[in-house]
């Protein structure tokens, strides 16, 4: 499965990859401080573990550095 993360193509062999898995694979220390867009839609922080990406999905990890809430 190919996913585009912050403009870069990444390949995953697993069938199911959650947003949390993606954040961990990309070595994000504190996932709760990242704002995630999946195909231009914001993903609720509470659902990072339960929302899964699909082949060709576009994912953006955004850091607004807005007060301890990166």
């Amino acid at each position: 499965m190919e996913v585009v993360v912050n403009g870069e193509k990444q390949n995953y062999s697993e069938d199911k990859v959650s947003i949390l898995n993606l954040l961990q694979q990309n070595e994000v220390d504190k996932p709760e401080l990242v704002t995630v867009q999946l195909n231009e839609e914001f993903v609720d922080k509470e659902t990072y573990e339960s929302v899964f990406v699909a082949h060709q999905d576009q994912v953006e990890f955004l850091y607004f550095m807005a007060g301890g809430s990166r």
Partner: protein
Amino acid sequence: MNRRFSTLAIHGDPIKKDVHGSIRMPVYDSVGFEFANSKDIQQSFEGRKPAHSYSRITNPTVEDFETRMRLLTGGTGALAVSSGMAAISNVVLALAESGSNIVTTRHLFGNTLALFEKTLKPWGLEARYVDMTRLEQVEAAVDKNTRMVFLENITNPQLEVADFSALSQIAGQKQIPLVADCTMTTPYLFLSRKFRVDVEIISSTKYISGGATSVGGVIIDTGNFDWKQSPKLAEAARKMGPMALLATLRKEIYRNTGACLSAHNAYLQSLGLETLFLRVDKSCDNAMRVAQYLEKQPAVKRVTYPGLESSPFFQLAREQFNGKFGGVLTFDLDSQESCFQFMDALQLIKRATNINDNKSLIIHPHSTIFCEYPESEREAMGVRSTLMRLSVGIEDVDDIIEDLHAAGEAIA
């Protein structure tokens, strides 16, 4: 694990482990920060990589203070700024525009009123003044051009308390953010998120700084408001979701107005936060004792303190402020001359402006903070020439009372 208030205030949640194992966030007194390569700096500017680039925008010591404030308020995020006034002006600039209005009250800190009337009015912003304790006035003042309802949760120096459950209901129905200056209570006494405040503003110069050590302010987005409903932020909400307000501030208004808090002041304010709960408890307890003492003095014509059962705001304050009533009270003598004589006779209590210092401070607002307003306006604001504001510190309360008593005897 859900940590409690004092633990969060003391430990925070450090973003990174310090390279030397320092258990206190160091003061990063550096303007610029280096990047490993060009791609990293590009990604940082695009918001795709978390990194500090320039201290007018972000700084590690300031971020540590902001993180603590976010944890203590349970909000979406917090932005630390150079003063409480910078916090108010940044929020107004973010939410309102020329031709729009804000619904507020004349019972405001004098500089806040001056910001609305003297600084922002010529740029086309209308401030509509109502009595926040009369909900029908608030409801009637709101129209399609209203961008926020703004008030102080304990007004200074009138010490009125508004009903936040009712006000938030009105603001919510009208889809307008409720913005509250909660300096007098801090998140230790008033959890703005719970009372459906949308944006909390604090002058951290006061209680938070730990004894008037530094000037600062904080803006907290409680996460209660959907910014798609804000005409000014609707487009930002599409791009930045729930971070629309804070990201607009960080990436535009805060950045462009240079409202940043210095790393040194952020360090002092984090230090102050660690003992906030102890100092607030003590000053509130002292204020109650002093108010009760003053109420019994024949020369004192009136004592205003929400903690007195004689206050019309007693019940509301008790419900909203965690059983405490703040550290500020006012009292009246028979004339301005008596007030001046009384203040001049004090030996311990300092004649100084500011509130919520560790030291007790007294001021005559009519001749100082509000001196630029005509008499009729001061009257409308409840700033009488016979009124003194006392910010009760954390000294031994018997020493405070003895000082007040001696001053009273000196002018008898």
